[in-house]
């Protein structure tokens, strides 16, 4: 048997319909049968009860008519008639009708029980003498006795007896009517005809449990079923007003109803076998009926099947088309299923068409995706960047060829491993690793640069961009792209180093400088600039050029000196990336009123660089300006000083030329000229010295490490004053440390000092030179102290003692140029030493020269 589900839809529908139809039919039949049965039974019951009632009433009427007839006849019978049978017979003959009422004859009985008249036999033949006797004895005026068998011919007979009374009311006899139940009688009229086809009647004497009459004659005089045997029967006999169905002693199911006949106390029973009652119901089980039903069913099924088939045609067509398409997708093309209807099937096919359209669109998307995937695969395969895919546990699932090339590991080695486990090494930055792990933990993308190691152990820098993949909102690992940035790193490192170097160069530039960006805002200021203006870099950065000018102007003593660079346009027409030649603007500079006045010169260069428009250089020329001024002052002073002896020489020579004076006067003039010429020579020498020294020509110094003691001794010994008055007292400590000196220059300085000491000691005071080792200014130094007992100086003079051309004696008595002390100071300072002068007017002067002690060839 095929599975039900594998049957065709039509068959299934039809089968189901048939099944439902059958069940409905059976249910309907059963229900109808039950209802019809009840209805029929009720109808039959009513009918049977009515029949019983009518039958009983008619029988009762019959009995009462007969009793009435007997009583009427009895009244006509008188005593004489009883005494005279002939008379009685005559009287009786007048009542032929009465005798017709009693099939077994009418009898007159004497009080002694003898029969006077009657047809046929005497009343002695009757078994029921008790009824006769009851009437005769006056117990009752009339009675209907039970049927008994006639002694003579055994016929079932019952008697109706009434008393014959005289005028005094004495019972003088009895009139007896006998009815033979075996012959046609008034009762049998009621009972002979069958009820329906198979039913019948019964007349029962319940008192004697005898069947008095029945449609089935054979049952007359049969005893009725005893009480307790058939409950329903008992119930009927007890006077139940209705019909009961029960099975009678013959085993036939019957519907019975009973009605009492009042005049006799007998029961009139109507019985009908149920089989007759339910004949219409049985008709339902009739074979024809079944055959008709079945045929109808088959016909209906066939019809339904055909209808369904017609209905399903478009669907089956569609199904076939679809199955064909699925077997041969290439035939599908752009076709849709044909639809001609708008019912459920039409809707279904339309829905199929929509699905097909969606499917086609999807297919197109998939096709285009496939193309894209192919391209992407090519990209991943051929890119020089390493590409890897890891699963959610960070284990490698896939790597591209570049990954193999980059790392040097084989695919077999790497797959299933965590990349970090074999790529990271000792110099890998643990912080970067931490960042990556943190991102992986939260399934976030990351972008890091990390130092990894190749299989060969060679380190390389790689830039990793890792993108988390989510499939259906679930962590599915990462796609990572790694670029080898080792070279880039190197280049960057070099560039960075280069930048740092350049920054250091600019930062270390002692000259202040500023860089303006393309918008002419300050983008760089070197430390020297900040130091000059005593500001922080952040105060100057991003100022506009105009603001910068204003800032500098506020610092200028005379703002007009300052030429604002913002008013100077950037030189146009420069080639890209080129700079102009330095613009030597305001080389004379401007003076800033800072902690001390400073003269600043400025230059700027215009640049056509992407980020630089102008570079401004400043130079602190305070010192140079001062030197320049000093030089010009010196020259002026020197010229003046030279002019004086020249004036004298010029004047006297002119006078001499004129020759008007005496010889003595001429001699005197020549003397003056000579002296003034000598003074000029001294002056020129000193001036040259000062010029040399002020040029700070260190190169001219021949510094040598040497003990100075012996040289100083020689110097002191050989020092000869102009007047040959040598009184130098030299006090020198033993074991003097060595000093690094240009001994010639040092001797010049000491000579100058000694010379001064003598010059200012007009009273020939003693001059002492002491050489000792001391600690001065926290340094070991050799002290050369020259002390005189001369005229000394006032504090004012002492203050100006190092000024060039300053002379403590302006009178000109003491010869000198006023440059000596300046020369001494310069020489000592060139040796890294110091000069200190103490003097008291009238007491003398002490000049102290400190020279640093050389340690290891260097000054300490």
């Amino acid at each position, binding site marked *: 048997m095929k599975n039900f589900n594998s049957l065709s839809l039509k068959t299934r529908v039809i089968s189901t319909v048939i099944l439902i139809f059958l069940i409905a039919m059976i249910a309907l039949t059963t229900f109808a049968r039950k209802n019809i049965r009840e209805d029929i039974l009720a109808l039959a019951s009513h009918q049977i009860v009515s029949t019983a009632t009518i039958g009983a009433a008619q029988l009762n009427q019959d009995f009462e008519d007969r009793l009435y007839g007997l009583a009427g006849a009895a009244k006509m019978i008188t005593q004489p008639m009883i005494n005279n049978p002939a008379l009685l017979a005559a009287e009786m003959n007048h009542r032929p009708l009465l005798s017709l009422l009693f099939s077994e004859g009418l009898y007159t009985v004497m009080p002694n029980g003898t029969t006077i008249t009657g047809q046929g036999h005497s009343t002695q033949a009757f078994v029921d003498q008790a009824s006769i006797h009851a009437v005769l004895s006056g117990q009752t005026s009339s009675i209907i006795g039970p049927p008994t068998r006639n002694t003579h011919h055994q016929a079932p007979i019952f008697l109706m007896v009434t008393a014959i009374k005289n005028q005094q009311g004495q019972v003088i006899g009895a009139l007896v009517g006998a009815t033979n139940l075996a012959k046609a009688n008034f009762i049998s009229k009621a009972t002979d005809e069958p009820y329906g086809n198979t039913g019948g009647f019964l007349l029962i004497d319940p008192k004697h449990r005898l069947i008095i009459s029945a449609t089935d004659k054979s049952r007359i005089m049969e005893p009725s079923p005893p009480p307790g045997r058939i409950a329903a029967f008992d119930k009927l006999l007890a006077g139940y007003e209705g019909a009961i169905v029960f099975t009678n002693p013959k085993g036939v199911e019957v519907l019975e109803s009973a009605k009492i006949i009042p005049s006799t106390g007998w029961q009139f029973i109507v019985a009908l076998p149920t089989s007759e009652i339910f004949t219409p119901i049985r008709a339902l089980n009739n074979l024809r009926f079944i055959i008709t039903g079945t045929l109808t069913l088959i016909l209906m099924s066939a019809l339904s099947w055909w209808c369904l088939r017609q209905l399903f045609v478009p669907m089956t067509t569609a199904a076939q088309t679809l199955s064909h398409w699925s077997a041969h997708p290439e035939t599908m093309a752009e076709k849709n299923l044909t639809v001609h209807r708008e019912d459920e099937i039409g809707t279904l096919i339309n829905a199929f068409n929509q699905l097909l359209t969606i499917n086609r669109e999807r297919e197109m998307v998939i096709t285009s995706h496939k193309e894209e995937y192919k391209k992407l695969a090519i990209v991943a395969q051929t890119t020089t960047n390493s590409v890897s895919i890891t699963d959610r546990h960070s284990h490698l699932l896939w790597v591209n060829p570049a990954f193999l090339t980059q790392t040097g590991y084989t695919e077999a080695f790497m797959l299933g491993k965590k990349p970090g486990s074999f790529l990271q090494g000792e110099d890998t930055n643990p912080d970067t690793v931490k960042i990556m792990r943190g991102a992986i933990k939260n399934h976030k993308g990351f972008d890091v640069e990390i130092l990894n190691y190749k299989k060969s152990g060679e380190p390389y820098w790689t830039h990793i961009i890792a993108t988390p993949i989510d499939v259906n909102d679930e962590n599915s690992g990462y796609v990572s792209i790694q670029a080898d940035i080792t070279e880039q790193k190197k280049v960057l490192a070099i560039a960075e180093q280069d930048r740092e170097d350049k920054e250091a160069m600019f930062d270390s530039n002692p000259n202040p400088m500023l860089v303006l960006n393309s918008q002419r805002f300050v983008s760089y200021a070197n430390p020297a600039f900040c130091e000059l203006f005593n500001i922080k870099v952040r105060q100057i950065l991003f100022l506009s050029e105009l603001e910068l000018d204003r800032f500098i102007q506020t610092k200028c003593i005379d703002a007009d000196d300052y030429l604002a660079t913002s008013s100077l346009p950037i030189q146009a027409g420069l080639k890209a990336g080129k700079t102009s030649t330095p613009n030597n603007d305001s080389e004379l500079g401007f003076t800033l009123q800072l902690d001390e006045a400073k003269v600043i010169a400025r230059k700027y260069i215009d640049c056509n660089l992407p980020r630089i428009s102008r570079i401004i250089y400043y130079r602190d020329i305070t010192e140079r300006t001062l030197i320049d001024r000093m030089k010009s002052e010196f020259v002026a002073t020197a010229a003046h000083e030279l002019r004086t002896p020249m004036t*004298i020489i010029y004047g006297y020579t002119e006078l001499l030329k004129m020759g008007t004076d005496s010889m003595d006067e001429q001699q005197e003039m020549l003397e*003056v000229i000579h002296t003034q010429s000598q003074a000029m020579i001294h002056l020129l020498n000193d001036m040259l010295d000062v010029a040399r020294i002020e040029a700070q020509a260190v190169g001219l110094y021949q510094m040598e490490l040497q003990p100075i003691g012996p040289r100083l001794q020689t110097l002191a010994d050989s020092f000869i004053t102009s007047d040959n008055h040598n009184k130098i007292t030299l006090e020198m400590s033993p074991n003097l440390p060595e000093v690094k000196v240009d001994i010639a220059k040092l001797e010049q300085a000491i000579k100058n000092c000694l010379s001064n000491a003598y010059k200012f000691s007009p009273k020939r005071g003693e001059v002492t030179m002491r050489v000792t080792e001391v600690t001065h200014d926290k340094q070991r130094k050799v002290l050369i102290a020259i002390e005189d007992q001369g005229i000394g100086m006032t504090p004012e003079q002492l203050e100006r003692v190092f000024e060039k051309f300053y002379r403590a004696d302006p009178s000109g008595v003491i010869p000198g140029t006023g440059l000596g002390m300046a020369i001494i100071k310069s020489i000592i300072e060139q040796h890294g030493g110091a000069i200190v002068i103490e003097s008291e007017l009238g007491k003398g002067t002490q000049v102290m020269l400190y020279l640093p002690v050389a340690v290891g060839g260097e000054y300490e």
Partner: protein
Amino acid sequence: MMMKKILVIDDNAEIRKLIKVSLGNKFQVSEADSAANASLRLEQDRPDLILLDIMMPGINGLDWCKLIRRWYQYNDMKIILVSALNQQHEIMEGLQSGADGYITKPFSPTHLLNEVNRLFSEPAI
């Protein structure tokens, strides 16, 4: 005729001596080594001419000249500046300070004497 009185003011003794020699013996010459000292002697000496150096310690000759011209009562007194400053603007400045003549050092003694004589021969205004 009384000898004209000339006051020589110079910090350098040799210069003063040269001037004195140059002027000869036709004038009554006195000396001062500074402007300060000269001031003390003006009332006493009542010089007709002052030969004045500019660059001197103490009061500068130009400044002293201006002071004299402003405050001194005898304004017919002549002043000749004798200075090493020989720039044109220096000379102009010297003459504007109230001096009657300007002689630059080194000077010719003849020229000096001529200048002095010229000044004395000019009629007083």
